[in-house]
Structure formats: C-alpha cells, structure tokens
C-alpha cells in the first residue's frame, strides 16, 4: 500500500480522537452534514494559499503527505469566494505543480524569433540581458516605448517596476478581451463597475437572468454555488443563449436566441417592463435620470419587432419580462463577464445595466449588492515619474472612454505601418498567453517581429514563450508567497498565499524576479523588502494581524464598516455619475460622441455553408493555461466542435469524426477537431471550448489536441467606445480531408 494512504490513515486516527471534542460529529457515526478537515482542529500539515488557476482567487489549504509531497488542495471554509469548496480547476491545481513539462530554467533565444531555439542561462545572465535591453529601448525611444502585458497575481510587482521605469503602458487581457465593456457600461450608468467577484446576490435572488453567462461551465466559484442555492430555493432562472448551455438546462425559461441579436431582445424587455409598468417606480423616480427619454426610445421595440430579429417568440419575451417584474427588486440581470462579442458590447451591457436599474436591483437584496473591500496598507516607495506620453497618445482620439490600457492598442503600436504616435518596442509579458488570448494572431505575430525585446514570464512553455527573446520561468502559485488577496465581497477580507513547497528546478517567484530586475535597472528603492514575506508581515502588523496569524487561518474576514450591503428603504444615494443619479440616458456617452441609449444594429450573417463560431468555457479548464495539467486533461483532453444534427447530416459528418475548420478568411485550423453532433447548438452556429489546439510541442499532453478558436478569430469587431475586441463575428466551414498537416498521435 502506498505510504500516502498510510499517512491518511495515521493522521485521521489522530483526527478522529480529537474530533470528538467539538462534539459536532453525530455520535451515531452518521454524516448528515459535510464536515471537512478544516473542522477537525488538528494539524494535518496544511498550508494556506489562494488559487491561481483562474482569477476568482479562492482561498484554500494545500495538504501535504508525511513525506512532504503536495497531496491535495481543499477550500478554506471561511472564504466567501469558495465557502470551503474549490472548483474542479482549483482542486486539480496540484497538476500545475506536478506537470513535468513546466519551464525549468531561464532561456535565451539563439535563433531568429519564432524559431524555438533557446539556450539555458543563469538568472543573472538572463536578467542582465533583459535589463540592458530595457535600458537601450528606454534611452532610444523613451520609457513609453515599453509595455507590460500582464494577468494574475504577479501583476502587482511588474506594475510597480514599470511605473518606476516611467511608463503607464500596463495592460491586462481582462479589460479589452473580457470585462472592459461591462465595467465601462456600468460605470456610465451607476458610476461604479460590476467588480470581480461580481456583486451578484444570487443566493437571495428570486429571478436570475443570464445573457450568455454560462454559469456552471463558467465555474467562477461562489456564483456557481449560489446558483445552486437559488435553484433549491425555487428561484426562476432565465437563460438567453443560442446554445442549450448547462445553465439553460437548469432554467425555467430558455431563450434560444439568434446570436448577435441580444440588444434587440433587451430593448424589447425594456419596452415591456416600462409599458406594462413592471418597473420599480419609486426606485426609478428617486434614483434614475433619463427615464422619459428611455421610454420614448423604446416605444417601438415591441416583442413582435424583436421576434423578427432574435427568433424569440413574442409570448416568451412577454412572459419573461413579467417574471422579472414579479421578482423585482430581487432580480439579477447578470452583467456578464466575458462580454467582448460583437463590437457593440458596451452598448449591449448598457442595456443590461438599464434593465437592472428599472427593476431596482442595484443595491438591493437578491439583486446587486454593495461590495466591501479591505484596504491593505501600501509599503511606501519613491514617487513614480509621470509618464511623458501615455497609451492614449498612440492613436489620439481612439477609444475615448476606455478606463484602462487596451492590450490590442499597444499591439497595434508595435506595427510601424499603423503609424502610431510613438512606437512600442519592448514587451514584457507576464502570465498571459497573448497568442491564444488576443484575436487575429497574424497581427500579434507581426507586432512581435517588429520588437526590440520580448520577455516572457510564465510557468509553462506556451505559444507566447516560443516567440520570446528571454524566457523567465516562474514557479507555480503553490511554491511562492504573493501579495495579499483583498478582493471586494460581501464582507471585507484578506487571504494569504504562501509556499507549500520549494520552487522546483531553477524557477523563481514573481516578486524575486521583479525585484532583481529592478536592482539591475537601478530601481531597487521601489522594492524595499528583500523578501516578500517580510513585506506581508509589515502590512499585516499594520492592520493588527501578523504573518503568523495568517499562516494559521489563511483567510481573515473583517466586519463591514456599516450595515450597508443593501440600500436601506428611503436611503438618499449619491451615485458617482456626473448627475449623481443612475443614468438611464447617458449624457457622458453623448458627450463622447456615442449613442446615449443603446440601439440595435444588425450584424453580418454567415454566408451559405458557413456557421458562426461561438465559444465558451469548459468547467474543468481555464483558457489555455490548464490544457496540459495532468489532472485536468484526465477530465477533458481535447475540445470538440458542436454541430447541430441537421447540419451534420447535410454535410455527412458523423459523431466523433475529426474535421478541420476553415474561416471566412481561409484560415484553416492547425489541427483536426472532434465533432460532437448535438441538439444543444443552433443550426446557424458551431460551438467550441476556448483554450485548446495548442501548437506548442513542449506541452506533450495537449499538443495538437483539439482546435484553437483564437486561430479562427481573424476578424475583430472592435468596440469604438473602449477598444474591446469583439470575437464572435467569425464564420467557419468544414473540411473533412486535409493533406499535409501535422496530426498529433
């Protein structure tokens, strides 16, 4: 028997004895309530962490075997993000540590870019090279010619470094490829964004409306948990999705919408809610502005009008509008998260925001709650130099209301043909696989070919590392300290991540990498602590805690300053919009040259023999980052293309057959993808899970498995308001035979 099993037995015998003390365990030995190891007050060698497999950042415990090997990761019961239950990806996070294909040591490219020929280097050599190139670019073009692309918890350190260098070009794909339109639309309406984790009070809602949000496949943890609670409590779920999503299967109403027509449906709902007076009159009167303009605007947007566009029966539109009205204000029209779909996304989410306002859900129980965030004291550093030029000067006038730097704009600035205001010549990429993350791969690669420097910090040999000049291997989240997690939630809280194991091979934590580089650049003052844990201890002591305490608890929840999770009855609220009101009619948009009220504009339709390519998440994977994770590939090792049986029949395509996809621009998928013939997808669309089809051979488990949606997204519908990259305007057709391709065995 393995010694791991022995450990389990030994430690639980100890646990059993002590467990009697709390007296909560049923004496009969009957388990009626889940009791987790966390409850058994014994030292089962557990180390606090928060998860890095996605950006929900659930807090958990890493359990180790008696030999000191990482055994399993379990959610922290005290954590509001997970309530003691990690999602499959968090549970499978162990595979990130054990993946044999991980990056092991710094690498320096020896041949031309894109040819994956690297030599091993010492950290010193690699960082010296990076520092000298950064200095070169900075002196030749100015620091604004440096850009940081980053995602994940290391962002804080590199942001600090780049600000110290004097550049503000710090962009995350979570803005222009993800939730940017949503946050700007909510900001324009409520003067506040929808936050991450979203402020959706799902557990107490009476009606949850999901517009494309595929919760259950999108595994953002406590949302999934609360949706299940809502099902238990009999809440109505309304799902709008061209695909019969998992959530649709749990819904009372599923609206099988024709893709790209959601704004028409939303306008019809607004019409119904206003003209049938389902809206929260007191709330609207008290808090909202622009109601009359809105009412006039939607006058003709009847369910019949919307039917012709969306293919949703008028009766169903009416019924669901009424259902929302009945549940008001305990209703959530989910703001969505990945909302960069068709280029009119800010306007679509504006319609969602308006709907929430009409139903009075913002600031109400069962609607959208008021988040609270714990402010962690910041270690004082010298003042940052004010950047001489910012990303807004690259293409003056573009994306006037973008509230954060736009990744794709920085990429455009690296292509001389685009005549940017100034060129971006050096990229520092941390924790984002730009090749699979940003649509129009050819464009990204063209930009890369014009760079003087591309540095990539990653844990895995991904597509982006293949293009790097210097690869800096970071250890995984299980092997390092990171900044305290302080995300907004119902209660303010912080969580600690500390190493459960020594970094494997010659990998290093992000903080160390950023600091060493800063020292080499003469910016060491910006990193006053040699060790991150000393900084954490300083921060924690400032707030009356300590690293010691956090090592034991992992999570610390604080009381709210005031009992203000929801607006109180009759509360006078000053919103952070220009008018101080919820702006149904956006004067701000109008001033910036955009429609103050959302309009439906038809989108391009697929040509004969082509199908709209839509994509989403699989619950057991995160983007492209988990495709090689041994535990998670066990659950799903390739994606498939969902095809309606009618379409499959017309093409003579069989279940489980492998085919290639070709898009409207004649781009053919590198790899064949398995067909799933299923009624769950419309006949005018095909569906794929994002993150597969890796062309990086060093990832042995996932190389060539499935197809990459990103590769087929060559046409980008850019949102003129904030620069978001709409990715669902691409159409594919099928190729059943292809010669001369590499097929993974």
């Amino acid at each position, binding site marked *: 028997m393995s010694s791991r099993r022995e450990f389990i037995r030994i430690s*639980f015998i100890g646990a059993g004895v002590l467990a009697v003390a709390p007296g909560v365990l049923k004496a009969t030995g009957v388990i009626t309530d889940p009791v*987790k190891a966390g409850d058994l007050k014994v030292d089962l060698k557990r180390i606090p962490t928060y998860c890095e497999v996605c950006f929900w950042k659930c807090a958990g415990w890493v359990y180790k075997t008696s030999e000191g090997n990482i055994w399993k990761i379990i959610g922290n019961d005290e954590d509001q993000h997970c309530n003691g239950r990690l*999602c499959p990806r968090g549970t499978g996070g162990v595979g990130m540590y054990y993946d044999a294909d991980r990056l092991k040591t710094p690498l320096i490219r020896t041949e031309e870019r894109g040819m994956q020929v690297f030599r091993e280097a010492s950290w010193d050599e690699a960082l010296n090279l990076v520092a000298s190139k950064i200095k070169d670019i900075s002196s030749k073009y100015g620091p604004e010619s440096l850009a940081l692309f980053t995602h994940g918890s290391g962002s804080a350190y590199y942001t600090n470094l780049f600000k110290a260098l004097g550049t503000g070009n710090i962009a995350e794909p979570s803005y222009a490829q993800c939730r940017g339109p949503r946050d700007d639309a909510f900001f324009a309406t409520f003067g506040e964004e929808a936050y991450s984790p979203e402020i959706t009070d799902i557990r107490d809602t009476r009606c949850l409306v999901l517009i494309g949000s595929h919760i259950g496949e999108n595994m953002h943890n406590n949302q999934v948990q609360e949706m299940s609670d809502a099902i238990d409590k009999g809440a109505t779920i309304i799902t709008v999705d061209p695909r019969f999503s998992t959530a649709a299967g749990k819904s009372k109403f599923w609206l099988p919408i024709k893709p790209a027509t959601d704004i028409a449906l939303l306008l019809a709902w607004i019409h119904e809610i206003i003209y049938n007076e389902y809206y929260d009159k007191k709330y609207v009167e008290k808090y909202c502005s622009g109601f009359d303009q809105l009412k006039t605007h939607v006058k003709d947007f009847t369910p019949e009008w919307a039917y012709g566009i969306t293919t949703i029966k008028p009766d169903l539109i009416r019924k669901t509008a009424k259902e929302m009205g009945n549940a008001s204000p305990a209703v959530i029209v989910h703001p969505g998260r990945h909302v960069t779909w068709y280029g009119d996304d800010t306007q679509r989410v504006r319609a969602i925001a308006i709907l929430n306002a009409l139903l009075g859900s913002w600031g109400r129980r069962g609607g959208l709650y008021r988040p609270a965030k714990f402010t962690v004291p910041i270690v004082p550093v010298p003042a940052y130099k004010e950047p001489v030029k910012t990303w807004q000067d690259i293409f003056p006038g573009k994306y006037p209301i973008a509230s954060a730097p736009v990744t794709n704009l920085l990429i455009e600035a690296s292509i001389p043909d685009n005549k940017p205001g100034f060129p971006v010549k050096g990229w520092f990429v941390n924790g984002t696989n730009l090749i699979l993350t940003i649509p129009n791969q050819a464009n990204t690669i063209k930009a890369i070919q014009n760079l003087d420097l591309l540095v990539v910090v990653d844990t895995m040999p991904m597509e982006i590392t293949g293009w790097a000049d210097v690869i800096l291997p970071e250890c995984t989240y299980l092997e390092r300290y990171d900044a305290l997690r302080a995300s907004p939630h119902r209660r303010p809280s912080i969580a600690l991540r500390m190493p459960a194991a020594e970094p494997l091979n010659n990998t290093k934590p992000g903080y160390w990498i950023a600091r060493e580089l800063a020292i080499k650049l003469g910016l060491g003052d910006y990193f006053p602590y040699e060790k991150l844990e000393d900084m954490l201890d300083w921060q924690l002591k400032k707030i009356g805690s300590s690293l010691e305490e956090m090592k034991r608890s992992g999570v610390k929840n604080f009381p709210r300053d005031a009992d203000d999770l929801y607006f109180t009855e009759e509360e006078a609220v000053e919103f952070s919009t220009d008018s101080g009101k919820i702006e149904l009619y956006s004067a701000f948009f109008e001033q910036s040259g955009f429609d103050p009220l959302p309009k439906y504009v038809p989108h391009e339709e697929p040509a004969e023999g082509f199908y709209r390519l839509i994509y989403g998440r699989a*619950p057991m994977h995160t983007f492209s980052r988990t495709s090689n994770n041994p535990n998670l590939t066990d659950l799903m090792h390739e994606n498939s293309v969902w095809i309606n049986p009618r379409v499959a029949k017309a093409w003579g395509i069989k279940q489980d057959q492998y085919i290639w996809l070709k898009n409207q621009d004649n781009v053919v998928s590198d790899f064949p993808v398995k067909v799933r013939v299923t009624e769950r997808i419309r006949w005018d669309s095909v569906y794929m899970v994002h993150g597969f089809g890796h062309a990086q051979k060093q990832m042995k488990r996932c190389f060539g498995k499935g197809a990459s949606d990103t590769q087929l997204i060559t046409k980008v519908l850019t949102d003129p308001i904030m620069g978001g990259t709409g990715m669902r305007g691409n159409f594919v057709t099928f190729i059943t035979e292809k010669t001369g391709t590499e097929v993974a065995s």
Partner: protein
Amino acid sequence: MRYAMAVDTKKCVGCSDCVVACQTENSVPIGFCRDWVVETTDGTYPQLQTEIRSERCNHCVNAPCVRCCPTGASHYAEGGIVLVAHDKCIGCGACIASCPYDARYAHPKGYVDKCTFCEHRIKVGMSPACVAVCPTKCIYFGDLDDANSNVSVVLKKRKHKTLIPEAGTNPQLYFLI
C-alpha cells in the same frame, strides 16, 4: 446502518470536481477514476432537456462483484459499503466483468480498485471527498436507517431513480430527478 448517496441531477452542473477531488484525495493514479460524470440530452432544438449525473460504484445490496470474487477480496463492510481488500485481490478481473455499471478499474499496481464511499473519511465523521467538494452541494450522503439523515430526508422529499434496476443489484446510489 446503511450508507447511501443521492445525486441531485437538477443541480449537478457536470463540472467533474467530484472526479478530480476523488482522484487527489484517494491517490487514484492519473488515467483512472473512481467516479465519472454522464450527461444526457433529450429532444430536438429548441425543445430540450438534459440530465447530469455524477456516477460511481452503487454499493449494491446484492452486489455481483462480491458474489463472483474468488478470494473474498471484494466484500461488504460496515454500513453495506462494498470494498476491495487490496492484499487479498489477485487481479483476476471477474468483478470488473461482473459490474453492470463498470464502476471498477484495475489499479496499475495489480489490484482492483473502486469507490469506497471514502470510508477512511466517514469513519472519522467527515463526508466523502466528492460530497465535500461539490460546488453545487448536489451530492447527499448518509445513513438510510436514520430517517433524519440528509439522504433519507431528500429521498423522501424528491422523486428519484437508480440505474439499471433490472440488473437486480439493488443500488444505493440514487439520482434525484
């Protein structure tokens, strides 16, 4: 005592957390599993219905795997849990062939393995790993002989079914429908 499990197909989202949690908890080798997830879809677009089930050994009351085992390695333990004593198993595969649910696998070390209802955990009052991790809390576990246990209560309240009842195994894994 009669342990049983009930999975709510109305809440299960098929995320497979139960599968990977079992794998890490019980050191199930990569490439094998003790539980798995099945999804069925019925109907024609847009008139559709899905059912999602997290499946594992049914801990059958009338277990063919126990009956056919030549060494007694497969046996009933306390509470009706069907277990395999690894050091009694010869790896003949008879039990694998005998299980109508295909719930067993041959461990690379030679013996046959399967869901144990996490008896090492329930012995000390913890719930099985898959139950404890499930984000939708859709798995209920407990003692059927105790009318107040979670599982008894939910089975009383909700319509449910078992898989292949016609195989006569009397499964103790229920699905709420």
